């Protein structure tokens, strides 16, 4: 498939410190490189330079490398910007790239393009599918969280107003012979004004972040009494969950928020997974499974002293869950087993929730799991929604400008575009749905 648009994303884990990379791929990569660095980059050679904003001021200073198709990661023109600034500067850099015509990458999109452009062989296809699968699920979960509550309500409200406005505009165009007063021009103007006001108020609130709490969702799971609740308390630094030596202590899911080196994390404690006749505990186990299905990362806790064969295996392999989240095995109670704590292999860490030994290694492993996703567009659900709101706002502004000029079909076109953008958040309204809305509201037809 010939590429027509250029995508961009932050390709490193969110968090403070270290180097951050913004990656750009597509036909605009070269132009964007020129605009950002003010010079021509020789392909495949790193240049240390300023990254400039629209006024030519330096946003950050770092290394830029340009690759030409097909000799690149994705098989397209690629630009990589390695900056030193923290997450805020990195975000500004990405915004700058987007303002130059790129669009925020979908989950897994870099990998997908690499595959489509033949940069991977067929044997890798399965792996690519897995990655895109889990990246899209991850994004879908992120979108769900971002779409919960007040934000969603307000977007839906605005979408509804816009739909009603379009019912009048499209109705006036498609049914000029009906004896229906599809609103006089001034009424359309008032309605349009109202939608625009509601939209900009929402954008202002959303930018402050109050409406969109999005963080890494880490779920602690495992057999009863292995130390899950102890780990929750350890990670969050609070005495949040009840800890006893009675298996089956935790009945309901319980969560705590903490900040992992700049990355917001919500950690969820769950009931120990086992078959039981206790109705309350059974419900707790069901809730635990649901929580696992929503997880970005599962911390699978086992007792380090347990030597039964399948103990180290991940819950999915053991048939405990069909959740596809990245899983980290935490071998707990190292103080009792007497073995050394720390990272044993990728995705396996030995810890002691009681003493805190090995917790740093576990935190690193969580960051790593998040970073693996980040390159594929994690944490972008909120950003994408804001992009969509901004584009909708622009289209509505254009509609308002056309309104006076007796160009109903152009106003309708701008409204359609605005609606398409909102559709990216709340689901697209098809032309047939719109017609249905017209027929339901007005008696049309001879």
């Amino acid at each position, binding site marked *: 498939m010939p590429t*027509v648009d250029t995508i961009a994303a932050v390709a490193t884990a969110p968090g403070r410190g270290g180097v951050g990379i913004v990656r750009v791929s597509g036909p605009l990569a070269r132009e964007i490189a020129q605009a950002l660095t003010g010079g021509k980059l020789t392909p495949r050679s790193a240049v240390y330079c300023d990254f400039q904003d629209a006024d030519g001021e330096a946003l950050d200073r770092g290394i830029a490398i340009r690759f030409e198709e097909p000799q690149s990661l994705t098989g397209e023109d690629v630009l990589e910007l390695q900056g030193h600034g923290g997450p805020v500067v990195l975000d500004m850099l990405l915004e700058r790239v987007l303002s130059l015509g790129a669009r925020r990458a979908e989950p897994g999109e870099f990998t997908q393009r690499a595959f489509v452009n033949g940069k991977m062989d067929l044997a890798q296809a399965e792996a690519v599918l897995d990655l895109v699968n889990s990246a899209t699920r991850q994004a879908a979960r992120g979108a769900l969280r971002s779409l919960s509550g007040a934000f969603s309500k307000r977007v839906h409200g605005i979408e509804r107003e816009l739909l009603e406005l379009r019912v009048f505009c499209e109705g006036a165009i*498609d049914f000029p012979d009906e004896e229906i007063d599809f609103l006089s021009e001034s009424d359309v103007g008032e309605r349009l004004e109202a939608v625009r006001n509601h939209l900009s108020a929402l954008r202002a609130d959303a930018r402050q972040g109050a409406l969109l709490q999005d963080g890494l969702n880490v779920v602690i799971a495992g057999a009863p009494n292995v130390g899950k609740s102890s780990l929750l308390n350890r990670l969050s630094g609070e005495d949040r969950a009840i800890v006893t030596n009675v298996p089956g202590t935790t009945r309901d899911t319980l969560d705590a928020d903490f900040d992992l080196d700049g990355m917001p994390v919500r950690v969820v404690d769950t009931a120990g997974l086992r078959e039981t006749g206790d109705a309350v505990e059974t419900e707790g186990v069901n809730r635990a499974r649901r929580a696992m299905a929503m997880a970005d990362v599962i911390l699978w806790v086992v007792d380090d002293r347990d030597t039964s064969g399948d103990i180290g295996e991940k819950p999915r392999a053991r048939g405990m869950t069909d959740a596809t989240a990245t899983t980290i095995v935490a071998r707990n109670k190292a103080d009792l087993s007497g073995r050394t704590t720390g990272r044993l292999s990728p995705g396996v860490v030995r810890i002691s929730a009681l003493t805190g030994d090995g917790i740093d290694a576990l935190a690193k492993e969580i960051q790593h799991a998040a970073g693996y996703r980040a390159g594929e567009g994690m944490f972008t659900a909120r950003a994408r929604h804001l992009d969509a709101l901004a584009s909708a706002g622009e289209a509505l502004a254009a509609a308002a400008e056309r309104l006076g000029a007796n160009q109903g079909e152009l106003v309708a076109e701008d409204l359609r575009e605005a609606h398409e953008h909102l559709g990216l958040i709340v689901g697209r309204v098809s032309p047939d749905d719109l017609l249905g809305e017209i027929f339901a509201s007005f008696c049309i037809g001879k």
Partner: protein
Amino acid sequence: MTLHSETYDVIVVGGGHAGTEAALAAARTGARTLLLTQSIETLGQMSCNPAIGGIGKSHLVREIDAMGGAMALATDAAGIQFRTLNASKGPAVRATRAQADRTLYRNAIRGMLEAQENLAIFQQSVVDIDIRKGRVEGVLTAMGLAFSAPAVVLTTGTFLGGRIHIGLESHAGGRAGDPASNALAARLRALPFAVDRLKTGTPPRIAGDTVDFARMQPQWGDEPCPTMSFISDGSEHPRQVACHIAATNAKTHRIIRSGLDRSPMYAGEIEGVGPRYCPSIEDKVVRFADRSSHQIFVEPEGLDTHELYPNGISTSLPFEVQFALVRSIEGFGQARITRPGYAIEYDFFDPRGLEPSLETKAVSGLYFAGQINGTTGYEEAAAQGLLAGLNAARKVAGSDPWTPQRHEAYLGVLVDDLVTLGTNEPYRMFSSRAEYRLRLRQDNADLRLTPVVREFGLVDADRWRRFEAKRDAIGRANAALRATPLAPGGELCLRLEARCGEAVAKETNLLDYLKRPAVTAADLVAVHAVDADIPALALEQAEIQAKYDGYIKRQDREIAKVRAQESVVLPAGLDYGCIEGLSNELKEKLSLARPATLARASRIPGITPAALSLLLIHAKRLAGRPDGSAPAGAESEPIGERAARRTA
């Protein structure tokens, strides 16, 4: 040699609007074509209201005309009242509507059919289709005559399994008194097509000499009188007459409510789904109970008949209720009904079983066009007919099928909607269905389509000559406008600023100046800014193109994206059920629609960017199989299960 021993290239079954355009198109390309109709007298019959065109619909008629079809020319020869709709809005949404004299229209169509080379017409109803090994071989008629051809276009409209309802009485029948094709319907139901029922209705017809027109509001056509065809000049039009506007009242609504218990719709006799946009009068009264009156367009059926078509009171109430409700209407106090209104239910085939060429996926060489595909309207039928006839002929000639894309024609929108989404009500064109309607105008249908289909043999020399003249004139107009500089303070500039009130801040040219909303081509002519020898029509085109330029450029990006997706073919054997990551709902929808390309998949409601990513990767993976083949079993896939019936 007797007819039944002859072999044709293309056989068209049905002589309605789809059938006649199909036969004409196939024959124009040079295919030896046979048109089989139940009755030669009803070729080109308008079985519903005597009007052609309207928003979205006249766009289709213009496209048919641009491709050398008959409908626009016949309308110009038969139209007795023409109006331009949306005249106060922009050119993209302007449309033409004509009232037609039924007899003149039929005569015009029949004349064109008889004059067409390579086309034979034969009166016989078809009872069977000869299918062997998944390929069509010909048809069998009621008399037992066999006609063979490698391509057959079926355009049997509402005749298939037709059932007419008036009150609680019902009987088998096609529209306008024609017999239903039940033998053929039974035969087709046995084939692997998904069949469903639709319904539509007509109003009672009224004798004009019993109507008091003085009590109604007359509505005359527009002056100057518009034309449908690009190659008409208005001299083809017969005498023009007025329509009238009447209205229902509180008494009418009381009568209707009192008869509801004997309405087949409300008594549950009808299972087919009627259109949302064309409700019966009883539906309107029930659903919009707060309205005290509904408008009725009283349309003349022709110049030498009194009969009237009261558009707006389609009904299947018992005759005595129809009689009373008609008489309650102002002006109809003494009116006599000439034919009762009725609802008709008929079979249609889920169009998702069709290729975009309108060939059925299940039977090679068999094409469906018109109401059989779930559409309504003469224009929708005729446009499909033309396309099916063309593609049938192309298949026989060994050429690739052709279908315009959504950004190229309303016909492209129509076909794509049908084969991708299917329909559960009679599908009618509206301009809001066309996301690229700013470029799909009735004024440029020829520019969009004529050069393309000329390659297929659809366009004759005369039309082509006129087309070239128009195209060249537009080219000259654009060049002249672009070449005329406009400098601030210049003499021409001052004249224009004075006339349009639009200041020129920095040096520009006439074409860019014309992009401004307040500036019109007429202004340029008025101040003598352009050569007098540039035709007004060409100048008007240049103006329209300039006005929409910004929007059309913006859409170009969108179209490029769709094009890219269009190039990704989804293999016929793709097993959607096995694609991990797709929701069950999407799996089901995709399995039913079996979209041919990624672009088509993208238009299925509920599809997400993530789902498209998955489809793309699966498609690439399948395409990369060593033998390049789809998995076994692809051929035996069912077309789709019987679409779930919606209860009314």
